[in-house]
């Protein structure tokens, strides 16, 4: 009896120490971000003198004001928003329809087609970005939102997830509707889609984040500065920026570019973290 009590209290002490240690690491983890945000809120002249300090003293919002008045960042944000929204909505439509076909229909070639789609999971972007570039050159479509969006719709992860999700829905729900002679399309729209809102939300969030952060394909496809996404635009202002006079402005651009993603993350954190488990667990 006495020994278990001691063991209990020492393990509780251990728990606290461990938590303290990880807590310290968590603080270290956010310090770079705090520092960057602080720099974005300091005057450039002050930053020329010193970049030290985690608090924005002296404080200014000039860097953010300049962002909107003189920089290309707003234009890049619009491009990113168009591309990310288009890619997300189209991925949801394509994944849901194809997933429904694989989960609920019997048709010749189903197995072969499903394996063909699954194999695509193992094709990395780098294996296709050169031929894609020549294709879009041939069609004279580079530097368009269309070029930034369409090649990235061919990712089969969403189809795979939706197939698994639809398969797990009990058939009774559809059978009742089929007795009323509802068409397959109606069953899909009225029954299956509403049931899959949680899965679609997770898939949508991931697609949006991937689209927003996409780098290699926009890098080769969008060469015209006005067609940059914000991720690509940020790459273009790197280089010797650490020595530059406009350090505060660079930092403000980075903060601003991350804002939409950060907000999404804070709202949907639960969906995103559990979504990873859903994607990999299957």
């Amino acid at each position, binding site marked *: 009896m006495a020994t278990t009590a001691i063991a209990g209290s020492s393990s509780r002490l251990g728990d606290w120490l461990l938590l303290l*240690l990880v807590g310290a690491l968590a603080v270290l983890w956010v310090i770079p971000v705090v520092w960057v945000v602080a720099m974005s809120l300091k005057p450039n002249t002050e930053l020329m003198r010193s970049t030290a300090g985690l608090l924005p003293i002296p404080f200014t919002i000039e860097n953010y004001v300049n962002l909107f008045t003189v920089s290309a960042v707003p234009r890049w944000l619009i491009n990113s928003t168009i591309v990310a929204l288009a890619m997300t909505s189209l991925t949801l439509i394509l994944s849901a329809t194809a997933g429904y076909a694989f989960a609920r229909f019997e048709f010749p070639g189903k197995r072969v087609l499903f394996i063909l789609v699954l194999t695509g999971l193992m094709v990395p972007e780098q294996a296709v970005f050169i031929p894609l*570039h020549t294709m879009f050159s041939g069609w004279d479509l580079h530097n368009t939102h269309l070029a930034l969006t369409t090649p990235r719709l061919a990712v089969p992860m969403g189809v795979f997830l939706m197939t698994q999700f639809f398969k797990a829905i009990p058939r009774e729900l559809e059978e009742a509707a089929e007795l009323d002679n509802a068409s397959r399309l109606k069953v899909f729209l009225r029954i299956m889609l509403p049931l899959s809102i949680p899965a679609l939300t997770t898939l949508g969030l991931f697609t949006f984040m991937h689209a927003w952060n996409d780098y290699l394909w926009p*890098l080769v496809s969008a060469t015209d500065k006005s067609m940059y996404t914000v*991720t690509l635009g*940020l790459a273009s202002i*790197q280089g010797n920026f650490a020595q530059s006079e406009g350090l505060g402005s660079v930092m403000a651009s980075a903060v601003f570019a991350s804002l939409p993603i950060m907000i999404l993350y804070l709202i949907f954190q639960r969906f995103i973290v559990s979504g990873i488990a859903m994607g*990999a667990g299957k």
Partner: protein
Amino acid sequence: MTAVAGTEPARAATPERSLRAGDALQAYLFLAPFLIIYLVFLVYPLFKGFWISLHDWELVGDYREYIGFLNYVDLWNDPLFWRVVRNTLTFVAMTVPAMTALALALALAVHKPGRARSVMRGVFFGSSVFSVTVVTLVWQMVLNGDRGLVAHLFRSLGLEPINFLGDPFWAMPSLTFATLWWGVGLPLALFLASLNQIPRELYEAAELDSASRWTVLRRITLPAIKRTTILVLVLQIVGQFQIFGQAQLMTGGGPANGTRVIVQYIYETGFRDWQIGYAAAMAVVLFVLMFAFSMLQLWLGRKED
């Protein structure tokens, strides 16, 4: 998700729906939008990439000449190609074990419920939502030898600051650090999910035997998450093999090609030197390597089941 998955047996009990006329046609209609996009933008480019790799093909202009496997022969004899392969492998060898160990340690520390732990989970995962360009911007600044955060820290401790990204020894570890900070969220989430699935009874039994913390970890926890650990390792190897943005933006491949990696070399060959035939050959090699590795994972997964 689990609630829905739990109803699986009930579904199996219902008889399969009978085939209706026109079903196949409808199925193809549902499938067509994705399948067309998939064939045009993934399957076809994959073969076209191989076709390009058999040519001396320039990015701009119409110059292209069929040269068979000459690009692959050149690749074999290209010292820089072997250098970037070695650099990439070094990066993978440094990053993957560190990432997996860090993710596992963090998961063990924060997987229990509680407000503080929940906030920390959010913090460690949070850095993975940034784009590669934001991550490289932050870390270039943090590691800057003159005005960086670490330089400030070194000076306040009376140490000489190091220009990490320009230093032959520190450049590669710097990329690893930035990558750990950026990427630990995904493996962390996988480990967390896996830890939450271990039945509580196992731990209760161990408590009755008053097993030590270490014994519980070694005998119960680690064996229970073995599958996830393998999954994390494979995903990490495949993922880190594709490193590009960090090297391109933080070190530019330097100093003296010390951090130039495969994808960066492909990009530079194709889009700076315009030799897309040669670049495509490298991309094919990269793809074959990674595909083989993924197949190995599938095979291992089958064996586990």
